[in-house]
């Protein structure tokens, strides 16, 4: 709602690039669960320690429904994020943030009332419920009379070593070794900054239907950035990885890749020639180029925009939008992915949704409000940044399925164009459909071959037009391992993306050199 100059623009960025504020195990004094009480609240596992009981939930939801809302929900969240930073040769800064709070929502048709508080006393939560209830203005409806605890969630965050149990003595040496390797791998590397972050905690959602769901949600991120010098010139670059996983995520292969990618992506910038300018064929490398899907179609398929009639895809369901070999999905189920969820932030099951099936526009991404509006089942896309926000339809892991072509065939088909390897951010105007993505590293394609590197160039296109122009799709799908954060209405949520190598027959490249 607070627009602050953003308008209805949606954007995504590599979250590794900002300092991750985060900390340490046991930062909450009461992190040890009390012995389980028998009785009506026996199903509440994590939030029992904060005094959350079924009678409390019942009372809050009754107040939220007291002015005639169609439905209401309560969202408790406890999140402990921790971070370590290496700069100038030492792991010499740590960060921690504890978020504990609760939000109450009442829904009447498409209308929503929301209140939240960090004070978990019954009276404070009841105040939030009253605020939310005021969206409706009619006779009271009943809150839930009995609760059902959803006990069978999928297990999509395969953690072996939990962050609660990890100490700085285990993570600090990883950072120091990474720095030493980065400096040793290329004498041109002069400065290394590393930010490491982890999160643990849980959410609890209880709604007016009597459903209670708890989900324990881990996350970790690692970002290595370096600055290199050559003949008096400087360049900076980096690489980051993120996952819903534990300490075991940082195996030797991954750490070696972080160093290698960060250093090569930086030092190759010295070889780069100015990117061309104007319309031309563009080949997107498998992996993080999935940002194209996120911006060109993903946001436009979020059902709130369509319910409000303001998306460029508002009247296109069931219509052909791409070549028949184009299949695009939004998927909650990729185990360990940053965009994976066991359940959405409204407590709905979350699976795999087809945005485009054999070139036909298939399904919007729904939260419960838009699903009720359209008379369909929610797709499990109701997500929020934290208890401070009401949920919205949001993406999870958005990617294109493999197609019939090969990478070599695609590159060889382009006489003069640009090959885009990796990206830092993108943005879209969801009504006009114009979108951009920023290419940090790429290559010129000349006569079917990658010839010289290019860098720092924005690519701009129009969603539906670009979808039509994806005319080759390879069989080499890669889900990017980077730490992407999607922004919408002032809320950031973790997402993933992926794509096989694809060719866009023509798109505008914003370089500095006349092609």
């Amino acid at each position, binding site marked *: 709602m607070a627009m602050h100059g953003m308008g209805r623009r949606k954007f995504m960025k590599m979250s590794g690039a900002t300092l991750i504020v985060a900390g340490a195990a*046991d930062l909450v004094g009461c992190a040890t669960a009390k012995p389980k009480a028998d009785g009506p609240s026996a199903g509440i596992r994590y939030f029992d320690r904060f005094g959350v009981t079924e009678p409390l939930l019942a009372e809050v939801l009754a107040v939220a429904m007291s002015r005639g809302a169609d439905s209401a929900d309560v969202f408790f969240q406890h999140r402990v994020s921790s971070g370590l930073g290496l700069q100038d040769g030492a792991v010499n800064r740590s960060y921690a943030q504890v978020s504990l709070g609760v939000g109450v929502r009442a829904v009447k048709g498409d209308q929503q009332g929301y209140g939240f508080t960090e004070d978990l006393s019954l009276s404070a939560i009841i105040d939030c419920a009253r605020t939310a209830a005021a969206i409706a203005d009619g006779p009271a409806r009943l809150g839930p009379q009995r609760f059902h605890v959803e006990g069978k969630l999928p297990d999509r965050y395969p953690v072996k070593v939990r962050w609660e149990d990890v100490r700085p003595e285990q993570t600090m040496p990883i950072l120091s070794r990474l720095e030493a390797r980065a400096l040793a791998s290329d004498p041109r590397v002069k400065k290394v900054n590393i930010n490491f972050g982890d999160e643990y905690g849980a959410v609890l959602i209880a709604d007016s239907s009597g459903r209670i769901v708890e989900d324990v949600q881990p996350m970790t991120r690692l970002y290595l950035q370096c600055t290199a010098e050559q003949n008096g010139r400087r360049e900076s670059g980096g690489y980051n990885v993120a996952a819903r996983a534990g300490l075991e995520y940082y195996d030797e292969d991954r750490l070696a890749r972080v160093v290698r990618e960060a250093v090569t992506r930086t030092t190759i910038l010295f070889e780069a020639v100015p990117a061309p300018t104007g319309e031309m064929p563009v080949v997107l490398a498998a992996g993080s180029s999935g940002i194209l899907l996120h911006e060109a179609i993903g946001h436009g398929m979020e059902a709130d925009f369509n319910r409000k*009639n303001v998306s460029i895809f508002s009247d296109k369901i069931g219509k052909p939008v791409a070549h028949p070999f184009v299949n695009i999905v939004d998927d909650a189920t990729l185990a360990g992915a940053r965009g994976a969820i066991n359940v959405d932030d409204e407590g709905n099951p979350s699976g795999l949704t087809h945005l485009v099936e054999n070139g036909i526009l298939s399904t919007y991404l729904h939260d419960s409000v838009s699903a009720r509006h359209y008379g369909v089942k929610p797709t499990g896309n109701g997500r929020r940044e934290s208890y401070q926000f009401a949920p919205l339809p949001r993406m999870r892991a958005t990617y294109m399925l493999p197609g019939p072509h090969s990478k070599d065939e695609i590159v060889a088909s382009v006489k003069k164009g640009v090959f885009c390897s990796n990206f830092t951010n993108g943005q879209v105007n969801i009504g006009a459909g114009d979108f951009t993505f920023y290419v940090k590293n790429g290559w010129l394609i000349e006569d079917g071959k990658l010839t010289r590197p290019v860098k720092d160039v924005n690519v701009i296109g129009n969603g539906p037009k670009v979808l039509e122009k994806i005319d080759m799709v390879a069989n080499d799908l890669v889900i990017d391992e980077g730490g992407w954060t999607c922004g919408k209405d002032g809320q950031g949520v973790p997402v993933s993306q992926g794509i096989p190598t694809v060719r866009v027959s023509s798109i505008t490249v*914003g370089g500095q050199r006349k092609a």
Partner: protein
Amino acid sequence: MATLDPIRQMQDMARGAADAARKAGAQQAAVTAARVRTVEVEWRDGRLERVKEATTRGLQVELYVDGRYSSVGTSDLRPDPLASFVETAIVMARKLEPDPFRSLPDPKLCQGQSKADLDLVDASQSSLTAVGRRERAQAAEAGARGVKGSAAILSVTSGFSDVLSESFRIHTDGFEGTRRGTTFQISAEVSVKDPDGRRPEDWDYALVRHLAAIPASESVGRAAGERAVARIGSKKGESAAMTMVVDSRAASRLVATLTGPLSGMALQQKQSCLEGKLGQPIGSALLDVADDPFLPRGLESRLFDSEGLAARRFPVFEKGVLRNFYVDSYYGRKLKVEPTTRGASNLAWTLGAKGQDALIAEAKEGVLVTGFLGGNSNGTTGDFSLGVQGYRFRGGKVAEPIGEMNISGNLLEVWKRLVALGNDPYPYSRLRTPTLVFEGVQFAGV
């Protein structure tokens, strides 16, 4: 609890945390307690869409323990968890490697705060009612629907919000500071149907410290409606080097590309294309900008900055010459320079004499950029590439809308092409940019 003065509560909590930190072994600590009260109303197409109301509280603690540094925060303010939170954070901090450059800022830099009355609090906020807020948002829709060409309007979303922010900061060496401020915002977003199937949108908003200064809701709605209708039929223009006039509202995006390379951290980490350029011309002589924390009712006005340094006004660029970086006390020690401040406050530009229409009339041929879309800049080298939309102008008059275009260049070069500034600083951003005119900017399109 609710009857206690909130500032007093924050002071007690911050002092308690600072004491706890010292008792647990921190030689120094800084604590900030904050409380933000927000009410938001969103109105869409003839009815209420969302209301949100909340008071959020939190505590941030910066710890200096045996030469080590940690910064932690929590929203769990129950006394027992809070005490153990601080103790645990100190235990963790001790495990870090030492950093000789970390300490509270030199108390001398925190002393001598200006006595200026920044006038940041509007007491009339407490008189706002739910109905009053809703009526303000509703009136913005009416303004949008009244514009010429409104038959093309698909949807209007408008909003009103008001915020009271309060914080209290304390250092264990004696510094104490309180900040309070209100803001009020009215906004409107309008989507229109383009005959070719696109649904272009545009928006307008106003963000002010005092309710009396907020423009009529109808005028904000009207501006959003006119902007959206004017987007109908936008086309990609040709790739060419042209004169670029940047609308005052959009210009903040361009200015923001300078903030990275102007920071002390970027300098010290060798990530600034402005390193070593103090005293050298970076832009044309028209680039003349000061950092002004004392602007009455300014969106980023303050008497002390986020680490407690007493605020002062200083030049950033004088007649094109770089005069100061944004350096906090930590990077000041690393760089062996006097700190200025951690981050920009309000910018004060030396303005031109003319409005945007006159500047366009003078420039004759080129592109008026009204919005940026995505893109990025490389602070180490100065290269930038940004998506743009706006209007072609020909013969000194605004002509057809253009979109899906891009500009690119280098920061060290583009500001030298600044040939004119407007007399129209945009009041709803702390960067307060006027209309900016650049010559010979590379546009990418068809």
